[in-house]
């Protein structure tokens, strides 16, 4: 049995520093009617990647603004076509919707490939090798089955999506692995559903007793459910993800997460949005401080042994065919 070493992620972003970058880029995005926002997005990602450190080295984002702009134009055209067509003729709207549903998995694969191929750590790129067929299964077939079964399959679908994403991701030549089971996802979703039932019972009791005061508990309970899902799902997903012989972990707490999310929201509302960069930095600090890598044996040795054989070609295809559709 080798000794296990814990390497926590460290996020070193600073609120005021990011505020200055954010606001200047926001101004330029507005002045160029949104075109510059692709450049702004690259800067934002670079700032966050470079400030994320693991075992003494930081991450890097290599996406080019032009690829992002291309993706945004495509997304905008698709969305505009869908909206306008739906207004003119409902039938045409349905047709375009079906068309969108049919190309969406294909676009998602391109987008995942773009994102990972443009991320690196210690000079080695990440990569995504998921097939189009796999994407159509998890992003189209399973969601349809979920609808048909009245969401009974929703946790299974979520599991399938994450399994597809993580099992097909790699760092250098080493693939990630996803060890969760559908049962893990069902357990979390069922607990959330139980809390929802509890909220329903509470509602019933307060209505029956004519005590509206009890209703105060309802939004709190609802907030808790939202936080519960937002914390427990990433915790599960990352803690069941590994790279080679090493394991990742995420240990967020619902209470702390909710406190940060709530105070962030309050700050943003009170400052008409000026707090947004500070809020993003705060949340990143918390998320990354809860995440890390459990290394089996010497991480430095593992890292030094990581290689990349196909760097040049994969980069080129990424440039030519891939685009980023996430807005």
């Amino acid at each position, binding site marked *: 049995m080798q000794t296990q070493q814990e390497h926590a992620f460290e996020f*070193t*972003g*600073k609120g005021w*520093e*990011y*505020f*200055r*970058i954010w*606001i*200047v*880029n*926001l*101004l330029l995005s*507005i*002045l160029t009617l949104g075109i510059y926002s692709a450049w702004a997005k690259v*800067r934002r990602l*670079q*700032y966050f990647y*470079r*400030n994320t450190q693991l075992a*003494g*080295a*930081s991450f*890097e984002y290599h996406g080019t603004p032009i690829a992002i702009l291309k993706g945004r134009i495509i997304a905008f055209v698709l969305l505009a076509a869908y909206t306008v067509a739906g207004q003119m003729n409902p039938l045409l709207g349905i047709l375009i919707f079906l068309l969108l549903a049919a190309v969406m998995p294909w676009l998602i694969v391109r987008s995942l490939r773009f994102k990972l191929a443009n991320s690196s*750590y*210690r*000079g*080695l790129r990440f990569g995504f090798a998921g097939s189009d067929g796999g994407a159509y299964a998890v992003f189209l077939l399973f969601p349809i089955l979920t609808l048909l079964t009245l969401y009974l399959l929703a946790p299974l679908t979520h599991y399938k999506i994450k399994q597809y994403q993580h099992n097909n991701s790699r760092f*250098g030549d080493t693939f990630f692995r996803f060890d969760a089971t559908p049962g893990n996802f069902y357990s979390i979703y069922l607990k959330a559903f139980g809390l929802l039932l509890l909220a329903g019972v509470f509602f019933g009791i307060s209505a029956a007793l004519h005590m509206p005061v009890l209703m105060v508990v309802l939004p709190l309970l609802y907030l808790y459910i939202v936080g519960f899902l937002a914390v427990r799902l990433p915790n599960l997903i990352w803690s069941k993800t590994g790279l080679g012989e090493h394991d990742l972990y995420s240990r967020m707490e619902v209470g702390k997460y909710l406190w940060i999310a709530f105070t962030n*929201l309050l700050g*943003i*509302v009170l400052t008409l*949005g*000026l707090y*947004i960069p500070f*809020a*993003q930095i705060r949340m990143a600090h918390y998320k990354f401080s809860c995440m890390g890598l459990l290394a089996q044996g010497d991480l430095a040795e593992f*890292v*030094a*042994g*990581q*290689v*990349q054989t196909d*760097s*040049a070609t994969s980069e080129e295809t990424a440039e030519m065919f891939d685009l980023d559709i996430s807005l």
Partner: protein
Amino acid sequence: MVTAQYFDGRTAAAHGVTLTLDDEWLQMRGDLLAHEWPLRDVKVSERLGDTPRRITLPDGGHCEVTDHAALDVLLKQGGYRQSWLDGMQHSMRWALLSALLIVLIFAAAYRYLLPWGAEVVARSIPPNMLQKMGASSLQTLDKLMLESSKLPPARQQALRDAYAKLSPLPDAQLAYRIEFRSASQIGPNAFALPDGNIVMLDELVALTDNDDEIIAVLAHERGHVEQRHALRMVLQSSAVGLAMTWYMGDVSSLLATVPAMLVQASYSRDMEREADEYAARTLQLNAKSTCLLPDILLKLEAAHAKRLAEASKDNGGSVMDYLASHPATQERSALLCPAH
């Protein structure tokens, strides 16, 4: 001299190196490592706060530098020029100036660009489209809140005839009809649909003393239609909603709708004034007193205040809800009927 970490791009191993500049050549030295490249073949990433800077090397590897001061000295020595954005992104003065400019741009767009754009778009919508929109809104309203009218058919016809006799202003574009409905939970009201149909509620008819008052209300509603107010409001609020979703996107889509609603309220004030003017001109053209409208407005206000007072007793609602979205009746009254 700059200390850095070198990665060769093929393995993840880090090598401690030092970088120096010899004339136009960047030299890298480390244990078992010695390379040099012309400085112009080397790509230096822009400064982003205190994040490590990246020097991309021609051999496919790169260096990560955290010693910013030393690197700046080296780059200056090599004649490397910062991009114009670099200074802006790191100065507090530019940050504050940007914030100020953003506020000004938003304010100007909201005050001038938005109403102008909405009007241009609203006016370019073809009549058959207006017809469809009117029909579908009436359908939705019927489903959600309207009931059929309890006015006797003869009375309905009499009002229709009286309205048909009202000569439209010369620039009027749409044909007008009245749809009679009732809605106890809305109270006395009338509203204009985009196709020119005007929904008149029984509760409003009951409130009036004579048919001329109804005609005054209809003229006012016609003003709303002719100036495409409903359409403009929908366009404006969806544009604001979109902008808010984009700006606040990360926060919550729920939050994004709140400001859009506030905007709607403040727009309807200007539009009420425009519709009042239109009604006054129509009434003048038909040789009727412009004081008819203030009369019925005062009655409406009293009726709504009463309803709201009752409602607030029940569930704690506020009279301010209603008042905020309508210009003060006295102010409107003074404009329409100076003799009052």
